[in-house]
């Protein structure tokens, strides 16, 4: 091959390689996800690990989820009011806050907060276990790391993140309510009535379904990248970073996909 042709083809080859690498990574993650899911349903089960994961993923995330939702709901109410005023539609604040929070911001913000809080801690913990041979030790003690470490965390993510999203939705709406009744002159009774009348069952179901999907993605990425960790402190750092990046991007992509499925008819 002539040198010129080679020069031309080199960037293409690099592009091809990285595309192949990406496909391979997607394949690995998918296989990992299916294997992990299958372990959720097959004994032995580790109830203590599951309880610890519930506590860590769910209960201990409540403060950060609550605060995030509260401030976002408040800011949303202000913006909608300011924007609505321009064409004298400021009365729609309760309805738009409800839709914005329940359909989009509640699940997405909770998902991202879980990625920041839970994905990172799972990845760092499992990566450290890998680096200090604790995963090897688990295996020699006849315990499957996938069952003992991954399955309880995934299950906790699947079950408890929807609950967190529900809490986030309620607190987000409450944030809008506080701002609207406190400084925008809405009457509390009719604000709540309007919110309640406007939301449909499908809105709420989609919110919870997104929560389950994001909880799954967040815990899966933590476990997967933790297990794949390279050696040493640097390996742990890389694994943690990669897990949070992947979780955040995948959550946003999944959100787009799910919104398309649920609402674009």
């Amino acid at each position: 091959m002539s040198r010129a042709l080679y020069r031309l083809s080199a960037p293409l080859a690099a592009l091809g390689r990285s595309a192949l690498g990406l496909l391979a990574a997607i394949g690995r993650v998918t296989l990992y996800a299916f294997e992990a899911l299958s372990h959720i349903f097959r004994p032995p089960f580790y109830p203590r690990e599951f309880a610890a994961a519930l506590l860590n993923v769910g209960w201990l995330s409540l403060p950060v989820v609550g605060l995030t939702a509260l401030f976002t709901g408040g800011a949303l109410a202000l913006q909608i009011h300011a924007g609505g005023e321009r064409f004298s539609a400021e009365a729609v604040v309760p309805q738009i806050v409800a839709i914005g929070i329940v359909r989009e911001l509640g699940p997405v913000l909770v998902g991202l907060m879980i990625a920041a809080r839970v994905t990172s801690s799972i990845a760092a913990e499992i990566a450290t276990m890998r680096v200090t041979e604790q995963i090897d030790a688990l295996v020699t003690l006849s315990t499957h790391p996938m069952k003992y470490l991954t399955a309880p965390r995934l299950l906790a993510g699947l079950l408890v993140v929807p609950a967190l999203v529900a809490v986030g939705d309620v607190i987000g709406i409450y944030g809008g309510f506080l701002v609207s009744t406190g400084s925008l002159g809405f009457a509390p009774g009719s604000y709540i009535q309007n919110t309640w009348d406007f939301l449909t069952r499908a809105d709420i179901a989609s919110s919870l379904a997104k929560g389950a999907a994001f909880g799954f993605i967040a815990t899966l990425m933590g476990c997967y990248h933790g297990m794949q960790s390279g050696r040493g402190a640097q390996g742990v750092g890389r694994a943690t970073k990669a897990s949070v990046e992947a979780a955040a991007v995948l959550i946003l992509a999944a959100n787009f996909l799910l919104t398309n499925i649920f609402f674009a008819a």
Partner: protein
Amino acid sequence: MIELIGVHKGFGAKQVLRGVDLSIARGESMVVIGGSGTGKSVLLKCILGLLEPDAGRILLDGQDVREAERDAFLARFGMLFQGGALFDSLPVWQNVAFRLLRGRLKRPRAEAREIAVEKLRRVGLGPEVADLLPAELSGGMQKRVGLARAIAAEPEIIFFDEPTTGLDPIMAGVINELIREIVTEMGATAMTITHDMSSVRAIADKVAMLHAGKIRWSGPVAQMDASGDPYLDQFIHGRAEGPIETLR
């Protein structure tokens, strides 16, 4: 009982094991010696299936370890890792009793705890450490907890990766005796890695020396001093001059 035939293992371009042949009989205490970084720990991990050899065969009772049913296979082994590898989220006694708290060897918590405390005593640790977390222990204490965990379920075959490094000479003596006892009294098969020649003499029935990815010499411990192998002699006597190259 354990037989390795032409085992190769490399990482990337780096060849670590280049055809290891070794056999260990039932109830025998084999000690593997060799320079730092020659692949002794890698060898143990290959036998346990934690690392996949690139070539060669590993047999346990004549059966290829890759074909063995994994749970039953692992249930026969105990392993002390070089770094201890304690689970840092669990208190010491739950580390020691890990196998006894779940899976097929599961027993009541109180009983498991009792066994853990007894095993801790055998490695020279009092009951007061049982409820501490591994991070609260010194390096040598962690090593001994790892040792207690390896022997807790009384496995048939036990691997010790440097059981006495980081211990004071008296405690090292205690641990050497313990390993010897486990082999003679419980009839266990042991494979120990160590750099400590007094440990070798205290523990070993047979000695194998790993050098340049192969077993350079192996034989009964009594013949070690009269082997006539310059590599082994240099290692035993810790001489800087000899056929084994040292960088300075």
